[in-house]
Structures are given as C-alpha cells and as structure tokens.
C-alpha cells in the first residue's frame, strides 16, 4: 500500500536542501489546520468534528455543567454519573463524560462517555462505558489528565480532554466532544501525536464495553448484523471488519439504542463481540513525530430496538457522504387482524446479494425494527438495494420473508399478517390461597420438542435451555423459558403454541408444582398452583446468596425490579448485592414491589480488575487478580460506582486495605470462583491467575513461587491471602465445584482457615439461576430480627452449609450433648464425641450419599436409598438420613484433623490429566471406571440435560446443570485442646 504524503516533500526540492526544513515548515502545513495533531501544547484545539452535519429544530437548549450529585444521574440502572463528571445536554439527549479523576472499566482515567441517554420520558441509559484506545494493551488506552470546557452557546458546547496513552506518555491524545442544539448525538474528534521513538501500530478507536449481556452490537456487513466473528485477543486481526456504522440496542424496551458513524471516512474499522466493540480508523503504522485523527458521531435514540439509532446513522451518512435512503413504513397484524406491539416481535431488514433463500453470507443486515403498540413500523434503509424483511418472534423466524426494493424515496410495505401466539395466565398461591411470589419454568413435552421452540436473538445468546424462548435470556421476565410471578400471585404472558410442562417454584425449600398444558395459537389458558413451605431448615438458619448481579453490572441487563423480585421468588433470605465494580442495594426496587420485609439485601461489590498488570512468577503476559466480593459497603449514588473502590492495578492485599475503609460495619471479603479460567485475557479467579498449585504449601513470605504470591503484603497491610471466605460452589458447574473444593481443602490442610461459601453468581433470570447454590447460615438468625453484624460474623466464622438442594443439619456432640455447628473454631472432643447428622431435602432433590471428608480424603460414605417412588411434588418424606456417627469412626484419637460432611449425588470420577496442576480436569468419559488417557485429557463432561425419567430432571429443570450437592464448613478437631494444628498437605 502506498501511503500519502508525497506532495509535501516536492516543495522542498526547489528551494534548497537543509533550509528546506524551515520552508517546508511554513509552507506545507498551514498552522490553523493542525489542531493538536502536532501534539498538545495545552492550548491547541481539535477542530469541530463532522463539519458537514447540520440538524435543525426549534429548541435551542444547550448546556455544559459538572454533575452536582445523584440528582443529575440519568435514568437507568447502568447510569453512573457522579460528582465531578461533566454533562453535555441539549433538548434531545444527556451525555455524561467521566471526570478526569474517575477511571471506569478498562480506562485508566475519566474522559470516556459514561452515560448517553435520550431525553424522553422513561428512557434508560444502557451504555456501560465508551473510551479511547489505540490498541489492546493497557499501554494503549487514553489517560486524560486535563479537561477544558468550550462554551460557545448557542452554537455548541464542548469538552476537550487532554492526555496521553496510559503507559506511553510520549504519545499524546486530545479528544473533543461537542454537542450542538437539536443533535441526537455527540460529535467527537480525537487527535493523536506519536512522540515515541519507534514506529507504532495504532488503531485509533472508541472502545465500547458491552460486557456480554447488555447492549448488543449490530454491524451492517455481509453475514453480519448481530453475528460477529469469534474474538480472540491472539488473533484479533482476523476479527477486523469495515462497516458503514455500528449500532447497538438493549434487551429492555425502555433501553436506549446507539449508533456510531465515522465522519471523516465512508467506512470505519473495528471488531465486535458481545463483550466489546472497538470502532475507529483503520489500523495505521504511525511514524515517530507523525499523527493521526479520527472523527465520529455517536448517536442515541429511544428504544425499543435499534431502528431509531440506525435512522440517525443513515441521516448522518446522507449529510456527510450524500448517500440516499428510502423511508420504509408498514404494519404488522398478529392474527385476526389484531395490531399488537410486543418486544418479542421484531423485523430484520437485510440487503440481498443473492436470492432470497441464500445463506447469511449473501445478506447484509441493515436494520432491525420493532413495531409500535399499534403494530406500525417506520425506518430508513439504504437506497437502490434489494431487501428482505424477515419477521421474528420468540427468537425464531415467523413466517416467510417479504422481498422488496428500495428504489424510491418512500415505500409502504404490504401488511404483515403474522401467526398469533398462545397466552398463558398462571396463578400461584400458598395453601391458604394468599398470593405467592414465585418463578415459572416452561419446558417442552412430547410431541413438542425443544428444537421446535428453542430461540435466540438472531443467533446471538443462543441458550440450549431457552425452549420455549419467551424473551431475551438476559433481560427481564419473561426471559428464556422463565417467568416471574409478582406479589399479585399472577402472571400473564405469551407462549409459542405447543405442549409444555409448566413448573411453579419458590426455591428448593418449598414444594414444587407442575402442570401439563397444550397451547394453540390464539388460545388463552389459565393455570393455578399451590405451593407450601417444607420443614427442611433448622431454626435460626437463613439462606443467603453472596454473589448476585443485576443490570448495574456491565454484564447483565436484568432490571432491578425483576432482580429484586427474583430474590423473593427463589426464597433467598439474605442477598449480598455484588455487581461488578458498582455498589447496589435494590432498596428502591424492593420498596416499589412492597417486598422489603421478605429479603435483606447487603450492598456490596464484586471487584473486577480489567487492566492487566499482575506479573506472577513465570507469567509471560500481564494478568489481573480475578474477582473478589466485599460486603456490606456504603451505597452512595453521589459517588462514582455508587461508592465502589477503584480496583485497577491492585493486588488483593492492597485492595483489602482499600476496601477496609469502605465497609459499613465489619465486612466480609470473599475470593470468588478461585480457579475459573480467564475471559478475554482477564483472569477471573485469583488462584488461577497466580497458578496456585494446591499440592504445594503457601510459604510464610513471598519466595518467588506461585504460592508465595499469597503471602505478599503489597501495601504493607493485608496479605493477598487475607480474605474471609472463598467460594466452594459457584453456579452449577460440577467441574468448577470440584476444582474449588480441592483448593479449599488445600488451604484447610495448611491451616489457612477460610469460610467455604456456595453462591449462584447469577446474572440473569434464566441461565444462572439465583439461589442455586446458596448458603445456609447458622447462628440463630431470623429475617424479622436480622442483625447484619452478627450475621456476617457467622459468615466469617464459617457457620455455613452450602447447598443447591440438600439440607445438612450438622451437629458435633460432645459428652454434655451440646451441639456445635460447623465453623472455623476448634472443637475439643470429649468422650463419646460424635456427629449428629440430619439430611433433609425436597422430594424432587436426588441424593445418593452422605460423605465424611477427613483432611481432604473421603473417610466414610453412607449410601442412601434411591429417590424413586417418592412424589416429587409432595410435601412429606423429607428426611433422607438422620443418625449419629462416632468421631472415632472418622479420626484417630490424638491427632488433630478437620472434617467436612457432604451430601448429594455421587461425585463423578475425575482426574488431573491435562496439565498436572493438582486440579481435576478430566472425567471418566469412556465409562470404564477409571480416568486415563483413553478419556482424552482435559475433556471434562458436565452432566447434561436428562430425560424426564431421571431423578435429576426436576431439579435440573429449575437450575440448569445442577448436580445435587451440599457441604458443611469444617469441624476442626483439637484433641488436646491446646490449639488446633493443621494436618499439613499430604
């Protein structure tokens, strides 16, 4: 490729050689055009972006101001405007730019777009964060150090951020955000001066952090739309695509939609995934002393759907590049001539490059429209193209596509008369007929198959369990195949025609109800269920989930109201609200629902480092520390992240020091999913990040080993090891449970005593279900007289049982018959010391065995009778085992030990074949009773969906993937009473 630039040197030839420097300096580049391309002298000003644009309207409102407090925060759970941020506002939109001192997500400073929301009633901000970068390394993100305001009302207002690349101070960047009256978007121009010594490849771009389950990017390219090439940081070059614009829309009806359009080029480069998009100028090799710039218009429009945002993108391109569009209007009817606006009905408009039946590779999706309440729709499409209109409902194509040409200024399409759905009304009540907040789960039954009713969002977010697909799996109810029943005890929703089981549940400690229905198109059916509490939990026990996400997390779209409703529907008593990097309390949602008394929410956070910095021994790439939960924290919406700490570039110990000051009372720090693999290069579990080997001892101080990382005091305060609890169960993955269990046992063997917890890590209503698993917290706690400090003390002391169904009621009984619960306190056994074990469960929860683990090895197993014959929907026959086990059966007198009691289905046979890291990674895949090379190292097969005859069917329907399991925290047996001595690693 031949680069531009030749004309400049030509002028230097004539006048001379050496002195040509000065002449060229004066003659080649008129200074007034340079803005900050020659670097930032503190005075330079990038020129006004998108100069060809002009929007007119009657309203002249325009302003720029600092955010004063929480009252300036736009609507929407993703809104994060906080004191110090900057608001640009006109009659059409509110934009919040991050204050310099406030880094967010992957950006090392403020200066990104924090909130962008249309100024229409009920519109919700959906933007996690948009910021500038020139590459994928932390070095390449813009670190702004100063912001200047330009107030030239009534013409425009602008904020100009000045700074440099984070770890390349010699590369300067200046970004101008400009807002004009009437305009539905921000004009943005970034200028970058390359002052480093070597040529540098730059991809000047806006990084748009979607976070997996929030906004979904839509790219109008061949085979594109919502489908994107797989994003792998090691081969990211393969994922680059040029496009006319990028749009994004939310899962919620009120959620805003966005579009980004380059102003200085007909195409923009970028890569896209559900996690992240980067949109900007083409990749460029920039020589030292040279510079690059890029301009774009970031548009925002009300939802639902993205057609209003794509309309803006077409308008911008029409003005800047003269591209023509066609105004397309139409009407949808859903059976019997009824107009019906619904989020589940959407219309995908694709340019046909071949015939109408061709594959995705012969189509360019240009827009998706969602009909209004009256069934009408209107949008713009590129002119002179051959289009198909494909209706979708319940995540599937609905009827045949309509084909048309955009050969005129305006087209009115024929009426789309589409098949009508069935409608189901479900009532759930207690046995006394009072309404009950509950969850409904639908599963197809013969002759309807899952394949016939499974759906997805145009191929994105395709979940096996979303059959029938009632709504986007990451949005509010109905989501996937689930519906929440509110305080009224009744829910009405549309269902694709078919045959289903409808389950009603209030969590694993209540009875389960089910009905079979056959639904025809247009048919309206009503069902009623009664549920009753089961006598499973001992007195003084509360169930708690210490790892829960909602829409405030960057990777969730679940509205607060539905998240709060799910707490009650799943029968969880105490919640630690642990959104990623933001403190939530759900107080408003619970208040609106009138459910404040049904659940206690402790505001907390899941710290989620994004900026790679950690260099554990032997690591050839930088890492992050994974995720930690902290609760209770003070919830302050006037602060960035509602008061959550800045957690970037902090080792765990330093983070513990920092959070210590933010606790509301005495807090709990929890190590989350310790060995979970990294996601897009970001480590999610600390023990995996440092490559902790559970077979090796943690030294007393850092010694250059992986294990030594745990003993470091990075800020001379806490050690990296000084968390209070660690997850032993997280969600329903059996593989991860077994790995975390190994890590926990390793710590217990070394006398590193941390409470073992079991949490759902739920981000949605559907795919990771709240309360599966959960903790049973002992200690005489009640919801009515909830004492948070005392409750958290029980958590720190490990007075816990973790479970996704079985209830372990465990007592260590010594000579005086006092009952000691599992905890991290040592117990001195007297004569005839024994364990009293009561194991109870709802009838539909399968349990095979009771296990006694001593110092990490299963010392005793009690097989339990099979559950067949038990009525899964009954309320009796709850006790599976009750009896005493003498301590002498488990442990040798005189030698201190720890004992963990477990129950559930038999654990799968596993081995560590793949990488010899001490963690299970392979199952007995050929069923020969041993795990060996024939099983293919690294192939861990999670137990999948089972048929209705399998005892696991009902539990697995409620909590996909669940493998019935429960574990108690340890009993520490101190024989001599002179202090418990850890057994050490085997």
């Amino acid at each position: 490729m031949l680069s531009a630039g030749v004309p400049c040197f030509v002028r230097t030839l004539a006048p001379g050689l050496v002195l040509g420097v000065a002449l060229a300096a004066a003659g080649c580049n008129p200074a007034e055009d340079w803005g900050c391309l020659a670097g930032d002298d503190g005075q330079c000003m990038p020129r006004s972006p998108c100069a060809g644009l002009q929007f007119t309207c009657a309203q002249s409102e325009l302003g720029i101001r600092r955010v004063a407090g929480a009252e300036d925060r736009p609507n929407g759970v993703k809104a994060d405007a906080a004191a110090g941020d900057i608001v640009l506002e006109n009659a059409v939109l509110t934009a919040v730019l991050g204050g310099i001192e406030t880094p967010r997500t992957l950006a090392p400073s403020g200066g990104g777009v924090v909130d962008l929301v249309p100024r229409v009633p009920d519109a919700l901000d959906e933007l996690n964060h948009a910021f500038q970068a020139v590459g994928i390394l932390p070095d390449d993100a813009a670190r702004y150090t100063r912001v200047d305001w330009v107030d030239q009302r009534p013409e425009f207002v602008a904020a100009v951020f000045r700074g440099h690349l984070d770890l390349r101070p010699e590369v300067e960047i200046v970004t101008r955000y400009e807002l004009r009256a009437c305009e539905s978007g921000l004009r943005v121009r970034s200028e970058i001066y390359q002052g480093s010594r070597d040529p540098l490849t730059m991809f000047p771009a806006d990084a748009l952090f979607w976070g997996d389950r929030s906004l979904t990017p839509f790219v109008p390219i061949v085979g594109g739309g919502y489908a994107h090439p797989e994003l792998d940081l090691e081969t990211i070059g393969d994922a680059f695509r040029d496009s006319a614009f990028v749009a994004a829309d939310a899962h919620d009806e009120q959620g805003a939609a966005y579009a980004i359009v380059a102003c200085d080029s007909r195409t923009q480069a970028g890569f896209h995934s559900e996690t992240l998009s980067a949109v900007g100028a083409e990749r460029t090799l920039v020589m030292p002393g040279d510079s690059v710039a890029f301009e774009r218009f970031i548009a925002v429009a009300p939802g639902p759907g993205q057609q209003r945002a794509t309309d803006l993108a077409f308008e911008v391109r029409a003005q800047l590049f003269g591209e023509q569009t066609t105004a397309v209007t139409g009407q949808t009817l859903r059976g019997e001539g009824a107009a019906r606006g619904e989020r589940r009905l959407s219309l995908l408009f694709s340019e046909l490059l071949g015939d109408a039946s061709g594959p995705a590779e012969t189509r360019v999706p240009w827009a998706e429209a969602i009909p209004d309440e009256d069934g009408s729709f209107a949008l713009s499409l590129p002119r002179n193209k051959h289009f198909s209109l494909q209706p979708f409902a319940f995540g599937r194509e609905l009827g045949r596509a309509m084909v048309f040409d955009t050969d005129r200024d305006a087209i009115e399409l024929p009426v789309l008369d589409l098949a009508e759905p069935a409608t189901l009304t479900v009532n759930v009540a207690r046995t006394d007929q009072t309404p009950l907040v509950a969850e409904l789960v639908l599963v197809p039954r013969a002759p309807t198959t899952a394949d016939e009713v499974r759906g997805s969002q145009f191929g994105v977010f395709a979940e096996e369990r979303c059959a029938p697909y009632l709504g986007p799996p990451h949005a509010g109810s109905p989501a996937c195949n689930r519906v929440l029943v509110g305080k009224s005890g009744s829910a009405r929703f549309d269902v694709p025609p078919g045959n289903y089981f409808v389950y009603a549940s209030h969590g694993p400690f209540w009875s389960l109800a089910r009905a079979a229905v056959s639904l025809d198109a247009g048919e309206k059916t009503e069902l009623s269920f009664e549920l009753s509490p089961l006598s499973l939990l001992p007195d003084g026990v509360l169930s708690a989930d210490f790892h829960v996400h909602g829409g405030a997390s960057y990777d969730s779209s679940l509205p607060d109201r539905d998240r709060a409703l799910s707490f009650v529907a799943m029968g969880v008593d105490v919640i630690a609200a642990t959104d990623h990097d933001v403190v939530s309390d759900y107080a408003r949602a619970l208040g609106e629902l009138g459910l404040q008394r049904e659940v206690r929410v402790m505001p907390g956070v899941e710290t989620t480092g994004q900026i790679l910095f950690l260099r554990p021994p032997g690591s050839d790439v930088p890492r992050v520390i994974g995720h930690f939960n902290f609760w209770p924290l003070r919830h302050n919406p006037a602060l960035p992240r509602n008061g959550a700490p800045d957690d970037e570039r902090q080792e765990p110990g330093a983070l513990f020091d920092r959070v210590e000051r933010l606790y509301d009372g005495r807090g709990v720090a929890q190590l989350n999913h310790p060995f979970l693999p990294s996601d897009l290069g970001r480590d999610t579990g600390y023990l995996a990040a440092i490559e902790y080997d559970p077979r090796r001892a943690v030294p007393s101080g850092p010694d250059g080993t992986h294990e030594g990382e745990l003993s470091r005091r990075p800020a001379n305060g806490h050690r990296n090891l000084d968390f209070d609890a660690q997850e032993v169960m997280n969600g329903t993955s059996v593989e991860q449970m077994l790995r975390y269990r190994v890590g926990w046992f390793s710590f217990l063997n070394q006398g590193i005593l941390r409470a073992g917890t079991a949490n759902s890590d739920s981000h949605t209503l559907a795919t990771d279900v709240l309360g599966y698993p959960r903790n049973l917290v002992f200690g005489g706690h009640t919801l009515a007289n909830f004492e948070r400090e005392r409750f958290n003390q029980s958590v720190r002391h490990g007075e816990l049982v973790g479970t996704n169904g079985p209830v372990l009621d465990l007592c260590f009984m010594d000579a005086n018959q006092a009952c000691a619960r599992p905890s991290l306190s040592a117990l001195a056994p007297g004569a005839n010391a024994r364990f009293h074990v009561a194991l109870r469960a709802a009838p539909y929860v399968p349990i095979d065995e009771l296990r006694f683990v001593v110092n990490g090895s299963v010392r005793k197993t009690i097989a339990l009778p099979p559950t067949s014959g038990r009525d899964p929907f009954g309320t009796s026959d709850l006790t599976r085992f009750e009896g005493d086990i003498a301590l002498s059966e488990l442990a040798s007198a005189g030698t201190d030990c720890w004992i963990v009691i477990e129950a559930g289905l038999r654990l799968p046979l596993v081995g560590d074949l793949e990488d010899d890291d001490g963690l299970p990674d392979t199952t007995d895949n050929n069923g020969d009773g041993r795990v060996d090379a024939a099983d293919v190292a690294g192939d861990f097969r999670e137990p999948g969906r089972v048929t209705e005859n399998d005892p696991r069917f009902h539990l697995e329907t409620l909590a996909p993937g669940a493998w019935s399991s429960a574990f108690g925290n340890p009993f520490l047996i101190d024989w001599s009473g002179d202090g418990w001595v850890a057994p050490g690693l085997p």
Partner: protein
Amino acid sequence: MGRAGTTVMRALPALATLALLSSTLSSPALARPCQSALPEAGASARLGFAPAGFGSVPEACPVTDSSLQGTASALLAFDDFYGLLEAGVAPRFRRRLFDSDWVSLWLPSLEYRFSANATIEAHTLGLGDAAVGYHHALAVNQRLVLTPYLRVLYPFDTGYRNATRYGFEHGLSASLLLSPRIELVGGLAFPAFFTHNGGRVLAVFVPSFETEAVLSPTAWLGIVLGAGVRVRSGKQPGFESFDPRAALRLYPVSGLRIELAAAAPLWGGDRTDLLLGLNLGWLFLDSR
C-alpha cells in the same frame, strides 16, 4: 542532549581541526590507501541504522559506482508485545568529481514496514527517504586518509501522514592501511533528524563512532569485522547502542561487488535486534 552526545558534540570541532591540519600535511595526490591493491578501499560495512544509510559512516575513498542497497531490520520486544520489521531497497550512486571529491546519491528506497502492537498489526509499502552527499578525501600520509562529508536527507518517506522528516549528516570517514591486505576503516557520523509536524519539530541527533577491520586475502574477497557505538540526544536521549558488525564482500568479477552485512545492536536504547545489509554494486574501476 545526553551526556554522551554532548561529549561527542564538543569533540567535533577538534576532530574537524585535526582533519584540516592533516589536509595541510597531505600530498595533493590521492592518498595511497585509496590506491592500494585492495579490491575496494575505505569502505565500512553498508548497513541501514537510519534512513538513506544515515548513521553508517560512508566510504572514505573516491570512486564512481552504482549499486542496489538492500536493508532490513528486526525488532522483537516480547516484554512490550511489540515488533517492527523494516526492509528496503534503494539505488545508490557515487560519482567521482575530482581527485579527492565525489558526490553520493541515495535514491528513494522502496520501503516495507510491518509493526505489531500486541496483535494489532499494520504494514506499509512506500517510498523511503533520499539523500545527497558531498565527500572530500584528505590524505594524511601514505597510510591514512580522512574524508569529511556532508549529506542531506530528502524527505521522500511516504510512511508519514501529516509529518515530514528532514535530516542531515556530517562526519568523517577514515581508512588506515595496516598492511597490503588489511585496513582499518570507520569514522564518525553525526546524523540529525527533524520531524516536522504542524509547527512542532521532533529533533533527534545520533552521533556514532565506528571502526572495522577489513581483511582482503584475495582480490575477490573481503571480510569485515568491527563495532560501532551510538548515542542519542534530543527526544529520549541516552546511550543508543553498541553495534558489533560483520560483512562479507565478494568480487566475483572485476568491478562487481556483492556485500552481505549484519549488525546486532546491544545494551542501549535502540531495541533493534538485527540489521542486515545487502549491496549489489558495480565499481567503475577506472575511476579509482
């Protein structure tokens, strides 16, 4: 300017004075080193430390020749997830004007660059810079010739979008004949670059000193071994590198030169791992 660069700069007038004094002592005729039996006298290894051969001491002896100069370099900084590959080929000419004077011309090279910033990659193919130079050989005695020179860079490099890079270099080439088959070559080079971008100039000055031994056991073979030292002032000053280098010259037929050269910068701010040079030239022997 860094301390090392400052020292070299201060030494420059003294060296120039020495050169002038030497010239007064020299015979009017061309010094013997340039007329020796060596297949090609006074030539350092031809490498591309900087555009258009800047940063490498040019030949010390007058001759008319034309050649194609290929250059390549590789920088692989794994810790920084950075890589840079550059390769170019340029026509070079030298034209003897008088007994001791000649001009040199380095035409714009065809230049390929590839840079990886982690896995974000880009490459360019375009023109590189050009240069013209004037060289004057001063015979100090029967064994030593000193050649002050001046070269000016023409900013042809199309790799720049908004900026333009200018430059000049002056210096002193030297050749000391140790025996009929062995000479020491080298000298001082003072390249300076000025990248102009909208009123802002990024100035870089990279003085270098190099010395090489050239062994010519036969009329068709030359072996070059030596080293150079560079310092940098201006932007990011400091010790630039110690550059061990080697070259192999073949003269398969009279007048035809094939040279393969390599250098490996060590220890300094220049992170380049390897430089390669390939020169295919024709010496107009009657011009010697």
